[in-house]
């Protein structure tokens, strides 16, 4: 085990290097650029043995990755916001083709108004594309999630998107413990071959079919299995390297009257505020959702079962509907905890800071309202 002190993007690139991808396709977009630059440097320096394709657009990035992954080689790519939106068609293609691709998405707001700052709408608006989605809170978690992602993807044959917040994680320094290559190789065997595209046994992959609905059903089955596999892989990772995260992180939820639900780095601020509230006698808990797809509805219901009120803080927004995490949480509670009121808050869009004062305001507003109304917007400028 060695120690690394660097920005999140470089930590991510280090994790990718240790996973031994064979084909990398890259197109730069802020705030992901450091990842693809670092991987290019590694390839040129002989630290990473991979074919590196400097592609001309994000759509082509995913097309190249899908084509290479169809051959059974391990692949990697990274993107953000506009680029992720551009490759939307290919995201569907990757999951429908059952390709075990791992991609980093550095969360960034979609324009216009033009923004390079953090916002999770980019990845959340891709929630129906059939990709597993992880939302990380620290560089350490990004590092570990990438390694776990390959093992999960190659088992269930669905692609995995590991999300980290633009600039907040991608460009801030953290100390990370790096396992040695041998440990990673033991945890992550070589990618399994695919039974297609073989000149000695030719076949055609991806043609029209009446069995479409069956193949979709198989995807659904894969996603259901993924809930189990994500946990198994996380447990195995903890056993091998001493750290694990689960699909959720519940903090002081067992006896909480009010539970704040969020994803990413906002959770850290929430925990600080929760501790302050506890000191003042207010029982606040924090539930961070780490795996968004497959949505761990049963685990969420279990974590919320004793709560009196729940406040979901979304760093994203679906116009005409509201916060995306809020909608998914409400749907999960339906039938299990139907009486639990869910208060919805939108905060931090376009990179707006979500401060402890904002969280305290959310807690106050939740306390004041007897029942939830429309989603409340935190941080609107006057």
């Amino acid at each position: 085990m060695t120690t690394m002190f660097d920005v999140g993007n470089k930590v991510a690139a280090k994790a990718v290097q240790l996973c031994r991808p064979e084909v990398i396709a890259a197109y730069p977009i802020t705030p992901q650029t450091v990842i693809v630059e670092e991987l290019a440097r590694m390839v040129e320096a002989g630290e990473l043995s991979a074919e590196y394709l400097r592609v001309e657009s994000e759509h082509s990035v995913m097309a190249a990755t899908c084509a290479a992954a169809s051959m059974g080689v391990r692949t990697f790519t990274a993107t953000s916001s506009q680029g992720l939106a551009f490759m939307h068609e290919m995201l569907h293609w990757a999951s429908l083709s059952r390709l075990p691709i791992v991609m980093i998405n550095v969360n960034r707001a979609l324009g216009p108004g033009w923004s390079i700052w953090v916002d999770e709408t980019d990845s959340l608006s891709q929630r129906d594309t059939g990709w597993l989605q992880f939302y990380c809170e620290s560089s350490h978690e990004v590092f570990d999630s990438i390694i776990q992602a390959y093992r999960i993807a190659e088992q269930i044959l669905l692609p995995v998107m590991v999300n980290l917040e633009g600039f907040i994680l991608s460009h801030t320094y953290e100390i990370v413990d790096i396992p040695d290559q041998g440990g990673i190789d033991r945890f992550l065997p070589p990618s399994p071959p695919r039974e297609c595209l073989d000149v000695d046994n030719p076949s055609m992959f991806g043609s029209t079919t009446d069995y479409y609905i069956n193949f979709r059903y198989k995807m659904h089955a894969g996603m259901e299995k993924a809930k189990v596999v994500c946990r198994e892989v996380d447990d195995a990772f903890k056993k091998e390297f001493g750290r694990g995260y689960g699909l959720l992180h519940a903090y002081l939820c067992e006896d909480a009257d009010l539970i704040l639900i969020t994803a990413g780095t906002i959770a850290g601020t929430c925990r600080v505020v929760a501790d302050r509230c506890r000191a003042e006698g207010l029982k606040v808990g924090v539930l961070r959702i780490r795996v968004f797809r497959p949505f761990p509805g049963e685990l969420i219901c279990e974590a919320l079962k004793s709560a009196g009120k729940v406040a979901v803080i979304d760093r994203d927004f679906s116009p005409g509907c509201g916060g995306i995490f809020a909608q998914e949480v409400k749907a999960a509670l339906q039938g299990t905890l139907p009486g639990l009121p869910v208060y919805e808050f939108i905060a931090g869009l376009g990179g707006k800071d979500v401060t402890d004062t904002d969280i305290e305001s959310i807690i106050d507003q939740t306390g004041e309202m007897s029942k939830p109304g429309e989603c409340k917007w935190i941080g609107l400028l006057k």
Partner: protein
Amino acid sequence: MDRSAQIKFPIAAEELVRSGHTACPGCGAVLAMKYVLKGLGPRTMVVIPPSCAGTIAAGFPFCALKIPVLRIPFETTAISASGIRAALDVMGKKDIHVLAWAGDGGTFDIGIQALSGAAERNDDIIYVCYDNEGYMNTGIQRSSSTPEGAWTTTTPSPYVKDTPKKDIIRIMAAHKIPYIATASIGYPSDLIKKVNRAKEIKGTKFILIFSPCPTGWRYSPDMTIRIAKLATETGIFPLYEVEDGEKYLLNPGRTLKPVKAYFSVQGRFRNLTEENLQWFEEKVRKEQAYLSRMAG
């Protein structure tokens, strides 16, 4: 016994396109595939987007081609081929040809970004565009490869396509890729010779194959080869190669027939006037002069 046909055109005997596919009777596109695969042989992988070729390759669980096929999204032909090439290189399988196979719509229009990208990177692929001058698979809509004066379902009479056929060869030549060729199903031995040249070269190779379409061009299916030959005999579709974007090698010259011989047998050009035909003659003269100049 040598099974290649020796008389006038040496063509390998093995068939990699199986009978009973969904192509229209007299289809030029499937002939293009037949000849190219005769040149490349069975150690070839092909990527095919939605197109006539995609439909011809058939639906699950059947396949009309005896080589590995990856169906890919419409605009990604060139980059998908590059992705396969990267994977094959990593796997050490450098003797397998990677064939990018798209029609004119998927090459001149929606696929041009990916094609330009692959060409700039000089990715080691053979890109073949079978040119039937329109989006034929979806119902004969115009593409930027449709020539002026042609009827299509999106340029219905009295409005016909009024912009020139996009000059894809000049565009590819500007990328300075090692090998570009125009070929025609009317001249299979010439086509196969060009395929054989391409497969020996490392880097991006681009071959444009003139592939008449009876359904879209409105002619009797038995005329497919005749029309392909007429296009070259009248100078409408000259045959040549370009090395490194600069060195032009023209197929042997001939006295050109009047363009009317080519246009008059196709229903899609029914509305051409004498004035239009004169204009086309002039265009052919200019193109011939240009090619002679480039060939030095």
